[in-house]
């Protein structure tokens, strides 16, 4: 039986061998991307893919890009990354936190290839990390929500209790409190980045419980759409989702990775690429707000001002005094939270009811 198999395989090989060629235009530099979801999610991965297209637009004569989508964060990730490295890609973007260890492992095996790991915290000579100060966008959203909400209850659909998400909730509430010191937030943890059914359920439940603004730290448009069905305002996530909720989206945080991606590719091309950690925000144009829609003129003006102030550095989202839930002061008056506190943030600020899942 085994020999029969071998003969069959040999025959097949003979028949098909002439068809094999992984032809690469030898001149262009190859840049690879590992995505955790589909580019069509219109959320996190979509934003990365848009940035990839920007690379092609600007540097298309020197660079060609490849992407692998839907790579789960487990053992498969290492293989996919390694495959990109083996097939001549010189710069590889791994766009999810869970790719951290696989990226480092592959980076060790391929010291000539440069890696960019999104939202991670470990680096190497050929591994950089980068992330965006999304929380600044959350602050702006909070300001809008605080002013617009009539019921005084925000519905927050959260994914996992990691610092990035907690930071977002805190920043949102800090912004909201500037407009309405008594505003409350209800948080539902769906334990997934992308689960439209659950996100829609969570949105409905939050609205049933009185929330009249819905915001999310998950990737699909389902929650926004569920809110739109009931005429409830909501915020888009990672990209402008206005076409899914034309009458109810207030704004969205847009992950504008393009300029960073283009800059790093250029650094690769001209040889100046070095391992670094980048955490850019509105000031550098990495976090962009979608147009302020479906709100009164004065709200839009306030939102714009907040946005501008954050961009110019006049305002910092986490400026003191800030107390945590137990009342302990964590940021003094006049000071701002440092990156260390922000990066590892695992506590709620004062004014948020409910416990952070441990």
């Amino acid at each position: 039986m085994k020999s029969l198999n071998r003969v069959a395989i040999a025959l097949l090989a003979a028949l098909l061998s002439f068809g094999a060629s992984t032809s690469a235009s030898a001149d262009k530099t190859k840049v690879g991307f590992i995505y955790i979801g589909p580019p069509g999610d219109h959320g996190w991965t979509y934003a990365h893919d848009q940035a990839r297209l920007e690379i092609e637009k600007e540097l298309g004569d020197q660079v060609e890009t490849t992407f692998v989508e839907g790579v789960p964060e487990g053992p498969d990730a290492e293989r996919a990354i390694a495959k990109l490295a083996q097939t001549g890609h010189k710069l590889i973007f791994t766009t999810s936190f869970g790719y951290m260890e696989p990226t480092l492992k592959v980076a060790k095996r391929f010291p000539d290839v440069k890696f960019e790991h999104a939202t991670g915290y470990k680096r190497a000579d050929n591994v950089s990390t980068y992330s965006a100060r999304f929380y600044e966008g959350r602050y702006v959203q909070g300001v809008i929500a605080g002013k617009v909400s009539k019921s005084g209850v925000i519905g927050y659909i959260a994914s996992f209790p990691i610092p990035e998400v907690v930071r977002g909730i805190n920043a949102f509430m800090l912004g909201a409190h500037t407009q309405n010191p008594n505003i409350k937030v209800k948080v539902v943890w769906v334990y997934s980045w992308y689960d439209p059914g659950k996100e829609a359920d969570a949105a409905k439940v939050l609205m049933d419980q009185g929330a009249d603004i819905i915001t999310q730290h998950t990737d699909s448009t389902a929650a926004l759409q569920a809110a739109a069905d009931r005429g409830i305002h909501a915020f888009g996530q990672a990209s402008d989702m206005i076409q899914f909720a034309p009458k109810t989206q207030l704004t969205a945080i847009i992950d504008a990775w393009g300029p960073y991606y283009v800059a790093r590719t250029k650094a690769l091309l001209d040889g100046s690429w070095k391992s670094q950690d980048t955490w850019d925000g509105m000031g550098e144009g990495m976090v962009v707000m979608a147009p302020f829609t479906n709100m009164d003129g004065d709200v839009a003006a306030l939102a714009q001002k907040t946005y501008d102030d954050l961009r110019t550095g006049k305002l910092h989202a986490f400026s003191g005094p800030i107390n945590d839930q137990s009342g302990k002061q964590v940021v003094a008056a006049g000071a701002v939270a440092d990156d260390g506190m922000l990066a590892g943030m695992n506590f709620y600020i004062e004014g948020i009811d409910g416990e952070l899942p441990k």
Partner: protein
Amino acid sequence: MLDLIIPSVMTMMTAATPLIFAATGELVCEKSGVLNLGVEGMMLIGAVFGFIGATVTGDPYMGLIVGAFSGIMASLIFAILTLLLVSNQVATGLALTIFGTGLSALVGANYVGETIDRIRPLYVPNSADGPSVAQLFFGHDPMVYLGLLVLLACAGFLSRSRWGMILRAVGDSDQSAHAIGYPVIQIRFAAVAFGGLMAGIGGAYLSLAYTPLWAENMSAGRGWIALALVVFASWRPIRVLFGAILFGGITIVQLNAQAIGLGIPGAIMSMLPYVATILVLVLISSNAMRVRLNAPACLGQPFRPER
């Protein structure tokens, strides 16, 4: 409190509806003696083709028809393999689920990120008025009512109509039914196709009304829960209704508890629907007498006519 209960019940009904469709269809299929484990795959096929139909034609109801039809087609693969080619029903059902998952992901890849005009409720109350009893009865989308209708119709069909009795006979004792002269294979074909129709509609409901978009694996295990529901209901249609509301409800209740701030870790709470399914299975199955009374005796057995 009332203004939390009414919306919660409405949300529970929408969560229960896909389960009602899929479980009712599978119930009829199993009553004829065929165990089709491919419900999850058929739901996904119904969801993706329904969504594509709605995107292409611009009409969600057209999408619904396309989704229903695709469910029937998927079930026919199963029917041909198990009824004509006498293949193992468990393995074939599993294969259908795997195939359906893969096919739907492939076909739907270009439609991720699209949106459609969803199936809307018939009566939309003035939002300023708040939830009302009228909304509770009339404010659902049409599929919720259709699901209840189909359920009742099946209950009536199985218990009171002549063909319903014949179908049950085929499921309980295929050899005797064959000896009397009933076309066992044809009846089972029809039952399987009906199961596919219902699973297709249940899946299409997900992508056309529940969350009007397509995402891989969007049925998220509902097909399997539907299978469990049939056992839970001891193969009696009306009980499917209770089971579906219970399971649809548990998911919603779990989220509600989180939002209220009960403090139990979300991951643990998310386990509730599955733990509940197991508990219920144990309770129902442990009464072996009842199971034997209600389960079709020939369930899962291939029909080999004795000459």
